[in-house]
C-alpha cells in the first residue's frame, strides 16, 4: 500500500495548518477529477441561470 504522503519517513503525521492540509488534498486530485469539477461548476451555473430566467419570465408575464 502506498505510504500516506502526509506522514514523514518514520510514519509520523506531518502537522500543518488546516488550510495547507486542505490545499494538499485539492492538489492531489487527478486531472480528470479536476476537469469534472470545473465543468460541473459551469453546468451548475447554467442550471441556476435557467432557473432564474424561468422565474423572471414567469414574473414578467404575470405582472405585465
Amino acid at each position, binding site marked *: 500500500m502506498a505510504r500516506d504522503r502526509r506522514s514523514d519517513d518514520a510514519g509520523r503525521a506531518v502537522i500543518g495548518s488546516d488550510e495547507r492540509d486542505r490545499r494538499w488534498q485539492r492538489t492531489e*486530485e487527478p486531472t480528470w477529477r479536476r476537469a469534472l469539477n470545473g465543468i460541473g461548476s459551469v453546468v451548475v451555473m447554467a442550471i441556476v441561470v435557467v432557473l432564474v430566467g424561468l422565474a423572471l419570465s414567469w414574473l414578467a408575464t404575470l405582472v405585465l
Partner: protein
Amino acid sequence: MLLAPSVDDVKAIIRASATGVLVFSLGIALLAPVALVLGEANAATALLVGAAPAVAMGVLGRRIPTSSLRLTWTRAIVTATTTWIACACVAAVPLYLSGHFVGVDAAFFDAVSGVTNTGHSLVADLDHLPRSLVLLRSWMEVAGGAAFLFVGQSLLEARRALATSLTPGDTMGEHVMPGTGKGLRRTWRTIAALGITGVVGVGVALSVAGVPLASLPITTISLVAAAATTGGFIPNTGAVGAYHSVVVEFMLVVLMLGGATSVGVLAAAARRQHDRIRNDFSFQVYVGMLAAVLAGTMVGLARAGTFEAVVPVARHGIFSAVAAVTTTGLSTVAPELFISDFGVLAPAALVTGMAVGGMLGSMSGGFSTLRMGLLAKGVISDVRKVLQPEGAVSRVGWMRLGRREVLTDAHVRSAATTVMLFLIGILAGATVLLWADGRIALRGALLTATSAIGNVGLDVGVLEPGQAWYVTTTFTILMLLGRLQWLGIFAAIGFVVAIVQGRR
C-alpha cells in the same frame, strides 16, 4: 519623443509572430486531406494555396537569428497584433478562392471575424459552402480563442497584478516570458475540457434531435467551436432554434458560460475553491450583469408581447441574454426579429450585455465585467472622498481570487479609457452604417456596431454580402480593435511610426 526600436526588437517580433502563423497555417494545411476525404478537391486546393506559403514563411521566420528572444512588454503587444492580422490574411485566401465571397475585402472580413471570435459573416450561400471550409471557420475560432486566452494568461501571470489595460504602468515585471508556460498549460486545459464536454454533450443532443449521421460530426464541431470560444459562426443559415431541441440549447448555454468565464475562476472551480470564486469581484459583476440582462430581456419580451406563453419567453430570453453577455452572438430566433419583434427594452438590455461582455481572462469580447466594476468602484471612491473629512484617507479594494487588490487612480483611468474608446467605436461604426444605407434604423446600426466591436457577431440583417468596401473595412477594423483592446493596435501603429521617425 519616440525611440526607434532596435533591429533585435524587429527580429524578435517577426520570429515570435512566425511561430503563431506557423501553428495556424499547419492547422489549415491539415484540413486539406479532410477536404479530399469529403470529396471537395477544389476546397483542398484552396486550403493548400493559402497554407503552403504561410507555412514556408513561418519556418523561415523562425530561423531569423536574434541575439535576444526576450519577450518584453512592447514586443509582446506588437507580436500579438501582427500575428492576428497575419493569420487573418492566411485564412482569407482559401475563403476567397471558394467563390462564396463578393470580393477580397469580404473574405478578409470573415477571416478577421473568425480569428477575433466575432461571428459576423459576409459569406454568400452558406448552406453550400464546402464542409471543409466550415471546419476552417471553426479552426479560426478555436485558434483565435486559444491565442486570446494564451496572451491574456501570459500577460496576467507576468504582471502578477491586474491587467486592466495593456500598458505596463502597474506591472511588477518587465518581461512577459515568465508567464508563458503557465499561460499555455491553462489555455490547453480550458480548451480541452470545454471541447470534450461540448463534443460529447452537443453531439448526443443533436443526434437525439434528429440531425442526420452524415452531417453530425461537422455540425457538432461547428456549434461547439462557436459556443465554447464565443465565436458564433453557425454551420448553416438559420438559428440554433432550427434544431428544435431544448437540450441542444442548454448544452450551448453551458459552453457559452464556460467560454466567457475567466480561466482563473475555472481553475479555482476545478480545485473546488468555491469561497474564492464567490468573493472574486470580477465574477460577482459577471453574475450581476447576467442577472440584469436576463431581467431586462424578460421584462422587455413580456412587455412587447413577442411571445404569449411563459415558456417561449423563458427559452428565447435566456438563450439571447446568455449569448449577449458571453458575446457569442448565437440566437434561437431569426436575428432580424431582435429589431422587428423584440420591442425596445429587450434589445437595449442585450446591447448593454454585448458591450460589457464576459470576464477578463476569458475568450469573450466586450470591455469586460471587471472594467465595468472598477468604474463603479471609482464612483464609490469619489463619493466617499466627498463625504469624509478633509485629509482622511479612503481605500477602496476588491478581491481577485483570494487576493485583495487596492483600487488606484490608474485602474479607474485605464478602465474609463477603454470604455470610452469602445463607445467611440460604436458611434463610428453606427455612423458609417447610417451613411452607407439610409434605410437602416438607428437601433439596428447601434446594435450591429456594438456587436462588431464587442466581438459578438449578432447580425440583425444589416451586414450582408455586397456591402460597400468602406463598410466592410470599417467593421473589419472595429473587430480587430475590440479583440486587441485598442491599445494593441495603437502600440503596433506606434511601433511602425517609431521605426520610421524614431530617434536612433
